[in-house]
């Protein structure tokens, strides 16, 4: 019987939510969509992103909306859950573009989702903007017919790439050998391609190891790596695996880590066992909260909005800066003086540096460049932060 | 000689179910194999129909060796057996049960051409199937139950369906495993008639049963096995008077 009640409840929920949509359509709204996986094994990015977006949308609407061309607009966020499934994402995007007439879509972070919707999205080039973090987007930017595409994450490689800066930093430390232990998935391979190159240029020996997503016990492959005596271990790339890798690595005597995705959580939990843990952290919230009022305000707002503590160990994911993106988009609409001429809005987005939690700007290909931190955790938990502001 | 059983032996671990058994079957006759429970009758049928492979000895069917062939190959060769406690496709109707059993018939008729019947262009090769099935059902007095689920038949009905399934395979030699057991008086007479009909149609029958009476009337020739070995063979009446047989049934000292 409890099953039956559960069904009825969920049915009611659905009715309610449908009703909510209906009301939202009443006044002048700018609809922004989000295509992200909020459940499933690789949902962390998508889930955190939509958290930031919900907050921003809520704040802006509570503040009475925003003015463009003497008209007041509110935001209407449509963020279905792709569950990491291209088929659903494709249908959801069609719904957004054709039924809800959304012009500004954030996401996706997952490569397979982007690939799944790319063909359809291309057909609507010029009619909307797709602003996602997926690494594969980088390779599509600036190509003819891809004006709809923008990438919302620092790119690893290239002169202003944070990866290049971090590898350089390692070279200065006199590191000779780095062993990578990567998820055998889409981003894992992108990372391998990028950093294989980067380390070669820096003259640092680079060794690749792969594991199946979902692995929990790494001691076998770690033991194998340890036998090769690398200076640093380069593990990838989500906290779901980093905690296990770092713990098990330290047990086997691998105590130096260097990573380009993921959080400080693993380092802090194992602070007595590691020697060195260098991480690319788009923003080191623990410190920024004290030094930057904006950040303090954001953290407080998050706690109030979600009635729970701020997920510091997930901070890098917040820092996909989806919160800023919403404000930046609104700002760009104001500057462009239009809410529906996407070409103008895109030009506006690329035309200024938004100064929010981050200093965010887009390069002429439509790829984001924002300031970030390199955080170095030493044995015992002593933390030193280097602020980087790529040009 | 239709089927020749030569020195057939089957052991399960230590137990010898059939030991050095030899006899022959002629076309058109009804052979009764009987013996007390556990005397190896059912094992014998399973050996002939290929369910078991013999430990030793050989089976010659129309001058070809049977041993090593799979049950469905032996069935295709014309030897079909029924089960002691009836096996059927419970959730299908009686008609559909028999229809499935029509497989061999279709195979013989159409051969590989039956594949063509899958394509719309060709009419079904088994268009006379229905009439054939109804014929078999009538023969087995099941026509009244044509469309009821097989599972809902009476025990006697199920056994009859078992026979009907075997008949539909158009066997040359029909092996019946205790067809009479558990049947009421009318069902028994009914079965008796059916089997006589069959012989009239030229089917060779090998019936095993522990019911001497029933078999005695039916069989042309009787073979008695005890502990898997043949202890008597001949006309049923003579065999039934045989001392060894009486001992086998009633135990020593009573005669």
């Amino acid at each position, binding site marked *: 019987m409890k099953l039956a009640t559960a069904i009825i409840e969920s049915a009611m929920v659905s009715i309610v939510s449908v009703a909510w949509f209906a009301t939202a359509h009443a006044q002048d709204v700018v609809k922004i969509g989000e295509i992200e996986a909020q459940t499933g094994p690789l949902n962390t990015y998508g889930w955190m992103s939509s958290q930031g977006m919900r907050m921003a949308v809520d704040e802006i609407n509570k503040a009475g909306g925003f003015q463009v061309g003497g008209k007041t607009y509110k935001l209407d966020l449509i963020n279905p859950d792709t569950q990491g499934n291209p088929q659903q994402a494709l249908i959801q995007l069609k719904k957004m573009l054709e039924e809800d007439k959304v012009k500004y879509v954030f996401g996706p972070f997952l490569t397979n989702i982007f690939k799944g919707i790319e063909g359809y999205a291309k057909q609507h080039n010029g009619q909307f903007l797709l602003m996602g973090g997926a690494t594969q987007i980088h390779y599509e930017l600036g190509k003819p017919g891809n004006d709809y595409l923008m990438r919302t994450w620092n790119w690893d490689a290239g002169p202003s790439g944070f990866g290049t800066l971090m590898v350089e930093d390692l070279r200065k430390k006199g590191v000779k050998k780095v062993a990578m232990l990567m998820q055998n998935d889409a981003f894992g391979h992108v990372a391998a391609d990028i950093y294989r190159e980067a380390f070669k240029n820096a003259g640092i020996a680079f060794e690749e190891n792969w*594991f199946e997503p979902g692995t929990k016990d790494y001691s076998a492959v770690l033991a194998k790596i340890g036998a090769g005596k690398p200076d640093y271990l380069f593990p990838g790339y989500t906290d779901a695996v980093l905690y296990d890798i770092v713990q098990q690595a330290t047990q086997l005597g691998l105590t130096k880590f260097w990573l380009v995705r993921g959080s400080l959580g693993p380092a802090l939990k194992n602070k007595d066992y590691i020697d060195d843990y260098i991480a690319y952290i788009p923003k080191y919230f623990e410190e920024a909260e004290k030094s930057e009022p904006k950040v303090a305000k954001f953290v407080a707002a998050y706690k109030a909005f979600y009635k729970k503590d701020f997920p510091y160990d997930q901070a890098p994911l917040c820092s996909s800066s989806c919160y800023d993106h919403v404000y930046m988009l609104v700002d760009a609409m104001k500057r462009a003086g239009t809410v529906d001429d996407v070409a103008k809005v895109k030009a506006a987005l690329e035309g200024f540096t938004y100064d929010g939690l981050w200093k965010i700007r887009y390069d002429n290909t439509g790829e984001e460049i924002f300031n970030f931190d390199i955080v170095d955790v030493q044995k015992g938990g002593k933390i030193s932060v280097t602020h980087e502001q790529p040009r | 000689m239709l089927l020749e059983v030569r020195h057939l032996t089957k052991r399960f671990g230590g137990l010898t179910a059939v030991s050095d058994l030899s006899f022959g079957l002629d076309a058109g006759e009804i052979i009764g194999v009987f013996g007390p429970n556990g005397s190896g009758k059912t094992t014998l049928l399973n050996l002939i129909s290929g369910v078991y492979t013999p430990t030793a000895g050989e089976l010659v069917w129309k001058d070809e060796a049977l041993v090593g062939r799979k049950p469905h190959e032996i069935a295709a060769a014309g030897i079909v057996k029924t089960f002691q406690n009836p096996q059927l496709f419970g959730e299908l109707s009686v008609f559909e049960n028999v229809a499935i059993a029509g497989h061999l018939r279709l195979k013989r008729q159409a051969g590989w051409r039956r594949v063509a019947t899958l394509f719309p262009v060709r009419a079904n090769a088994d268009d006379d199937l229905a009439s054939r099935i109804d014929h078999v059902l009538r023969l087995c007095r099941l026509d009244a139950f044509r469309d009821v689920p097989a599972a809902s038949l009476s025990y006697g009905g199920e056994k009859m369906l078992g026979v009907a399934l075997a008949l539909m395979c158009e066997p040359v030699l029909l092996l019946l495993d205790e067809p009479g057991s558990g049947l009421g008086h009318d069902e028994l007479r009914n079965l008796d008639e059916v089997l006589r009909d069959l012989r009239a149609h030229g089917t060779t029958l090998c019936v095993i049963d522990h019911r001497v009476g029933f078999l005695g009337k039916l069989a042309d020739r009787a073979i008695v096995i005890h502990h898997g070995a043949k202890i008597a063979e001949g006309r049923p009446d003579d065999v039934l008077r045989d001392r060894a047989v009486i001992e086998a049934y009633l135990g020593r000292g009573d005669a």
Partner: protein
Amino acid sequence: MLQLVVGQLLNGVIVGTLYAIIALGVTLTFGITGIVNFALGVFMMLGAYVTWYLTDGIGIAYPLAVPLAVACIALIGLAVDQSLFRFTRNNLINGLIVSIGLISVIVAIVLMIWTTTPQNMHYVLPGVLRLGGVVVPKMKAVVFVVLLLVILFTYGALTRTWAGRAAYAYAQNAEAAALMGIRTGVLQAGVAAYSAALAGLGGALYASLYSITPEIGSSYILKGVEAAILAGIGSVMGSFAGGIIIGVAEGVGSIFLPSAYNDAYGLVFLVLILLLRPAGLFAPR
């Protein structure tokens, strides 16, 4: 090189016992209720979450939290068995589907409560043992010993106690056992609860070794089922050995072969065994 292999043999055995505890549950439920309960994986996941919640959330000491979690999971297993699996007895396919449905229900509930953010329990027993050149984390050693004891206990209980013999008898021949006066319903419910408890224990111990996410159930149930079948479903010590075989295959395998194929080694084993000995490795010929 040698110590690398020895180390991985050891580690494989330890990791294998975690598979084995699930395999044991699979074997027992299959023997008594005639279904393969894939939900045992999520029971393990629940066990891990509950333990983590009791220790880091409420602040109960780990040694105390484990039995609590196990009991809690056993109850859930019992409730589920009575409300769902009671209706799919001896129907492998239906039982399979129901357990799959149950998986997504439970995962959904866990997501609602704890989200997908990986949870990490504080270290119960940090540090490692060094046996020559071979390194074994202390906690892993403890986990191994506990699981080993539980498996041996189960084996003993099944062979020496009345309930155990009843279970065996039932697995051999249901009608006969029923005639012997074994109360089928109670037996099945009991075994369902016990298997859930085993999975819960697996989870409770897991929590002390690895990070906890809602997905962990699926990978462990697959390994568990593999192990159970590998050994010949129905055999207690067999499922233990099966788990260890897969664990070692993965551990040692990934030294010599690319670790990306880690999951394949167990499978290859499984297929070969099933083809060469369809009844399973330890089943009597």
